[in-house]
């Protein structure tokens, strides 16, 4: 405990902590993010309905506008309900949960692929490096959303229709994860090539450290700053990509909706004047992405890794 407090004190006493406390944008978006994350984690407790279970739908209260009680049943809904009596607040909470989960795991996946390949590429150089960077070049010339769409489309085709919906979440994570590794690989590779020349690496080589230890214990900690910046920015990007895939119908199914799926189904009600079914998931999505982007911008300015 004492060690933890000391660590926190050190963090807030540092330049980064100082800049953080002085940046209203970063402070505010952290707050917003924490609230959203808490809401997502607590969805099963907070949500009035369990939207994953069709039995909890309040069919008689269908199409209730937000912040009003249904004329028929008298049930009050703060975010309103859709045509099947699904509470929009609950749907948004569960949707945020799925969106955040997918984006986080996808970022972790692309980070591990990208950092590993970047370390290998930068450290060993030569043919390995050329091969990896060639693939990266090709992938970089194709927009990420496109690669994600293709992977998701192909995997849908490969899977039997029965398991498609249950496995959809893994497919989406895989699609977004694979589409995003290049930025990490390139940045880490560049940083490793610089670090490789440093004396501490030479010294470590001299005492005969195994390559693995060298890469993971000595070089990796020294390139973690740019990785952190990219991870933050690509978290926002992953959330948006997932929403886009789901919106297009190539992402998460209506039985396990993310914010994008909710927006997709909400769009049909827009023409009928029932704007709330779309509005709340859309507003949550925008807030989430905006908060992460503001935080990412601040991080980039503070850590200031060149060439980003």
């Amino acid at each position, binding site marked *: 405990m004492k060690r933890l407090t000391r660590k926190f004190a050190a963090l807030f006493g540092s330049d980064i902590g100082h800049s953080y406390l002085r940046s209203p944008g970063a402070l505010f978006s952290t707050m917003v993010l924490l609230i959203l994350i808490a809401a997502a984690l607590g969805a099963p407790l907070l949500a009035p309905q369990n939207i994953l279970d069709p039995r909890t739908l309040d069919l008689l209260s269908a199409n209730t506008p937000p912040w009003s009680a249904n004329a028929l049943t008298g049930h009050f809904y703060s975010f309103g309900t859709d045509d099947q009596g699904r509470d929009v607040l609950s749907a948004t909470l569960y949707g945020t949960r799925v969106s955040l989960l997918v984006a986080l795991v996808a970022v972790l996946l692309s980070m591990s692929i990208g950092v590993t390949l970047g370390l290998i590429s930068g450290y060993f150089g030569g043919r390995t490096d050329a091969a990896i960077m060639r693939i990266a070049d090709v992938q970089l010339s*194709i927009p990420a959303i496109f690669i994600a769409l293709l992977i998701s489309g192909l995997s849908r085709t490969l899977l039997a229709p029965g398991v498609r919906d249950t496995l959809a979440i893994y497919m989406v994570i895989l699609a977004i994860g694979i589409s995003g590794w290049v930025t990490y690989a390139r940045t880490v590779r560049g940083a490793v090539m610089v670090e490789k020349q440093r004396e501490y690496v030479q010294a470590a080589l001299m005492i005969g450290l195994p390559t693995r230890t060298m890469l993971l214990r000595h070089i990796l900690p020294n390139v973690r700053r740019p990785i952190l910046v990219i991870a933050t920015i690509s978290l926002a990007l992953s959330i*948006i990509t997932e929403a886009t895939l789901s919106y*297009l119908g190539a992402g998460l199914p209506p039985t396990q909706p993310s914010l994008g799926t909710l927006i997709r189904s909400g769009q049909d009600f827009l023409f009928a004047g029932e*704007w709330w079914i779309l509005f709340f998931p859309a507003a949550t*999505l*925008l807030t989430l992405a905006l908060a992460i982007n503001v935080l990412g911008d601040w991080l980039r300015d503070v850590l200031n890794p060149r060439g980003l």
Partner: protein
Amino acid sequence: MTGFFLRRLASVFPVMLVTAFLSFAAFHFIGDPLQNMLGQEASAQDRARLAAELGFDRPFYIQFLKFVGFALQGDFGISTRVGRPVLDLILERLPATLELALLSFFFAMSAGIALGVMTALRPSSALSRVSMTGSLIAVSLPNFLIGIGLIYVFSIKLGWLPSFGRGDTVKIGWWTTGLLTKSGWKAILLPAISLAAYQLTLILRLVRAEMLEVMHSDYIRFARARGLPKRLIYFSYALKNTMVPVVTVAGLQLGSIIAFAVVTETVFQWPGVGLLFINSIRYSDVPIMATYLLIVSFIFVAINMVVDCIYYLLDPRLRAVGGIK
């Protein structure tokens, strides 16, 4: 220049071959085309006969070579969903996508450069502040939400513009254009703006950053000292030098506009190739998916190559020995 161009061209072939192989593998391993064509009740003899007729009994690599051969002649097979040649389906929808992509590219470039210059030169003006805040929001705003927002305001609330389709089109040869009719222009406006929004912010931020950097350079300071008119300094001296990175990014953005057209076309039910592709994903129509993949990667590769060459032409430093490889 020729050497550079040839080297670039040579690097295109492996990429295209890999893409072709992936497309072919998709054809080959996903789904069972024979089953689709024959139906459930076909006998084993029927199956073998059709396989022999279509060359499916040949070794994998011969089939692949045949696929490449046919693809080079523009024969990409038949859509398993619609039952028409894939190339016809794609060609009749290509004009819609290209018109949309080029118009929004034009929007993004003109508005992006204008606003970028303005935010760099007059950072405290109201319009600059609005565009800087707007650009931060636009980066976080998924493309499809911009489209839905535009539909809500301009189609549903105000009723000014249509929310879907292409309006009336005019046929010129095999090309259909919506840019010659009033309803066509009305229909393309919202999709083009929503598609342009993200690229616009990218160009804006880039031009702004480049302008800010250039304005601090010595030659601008010197031009000021000589008492040259401001207009001349800003546009002939400063802006011209920001164009090298802008052209590069703009070229890459054209590719990403084509990719994001998939999303915009879905939002506005725009009858382009993107919508065809999305439907083919939903219905597992592999020939269309594979052909779209091939054609789009060809477009990307071509754009990248053109951009590289423009870059090379614009920046004399790259032409020095040992510059770009």
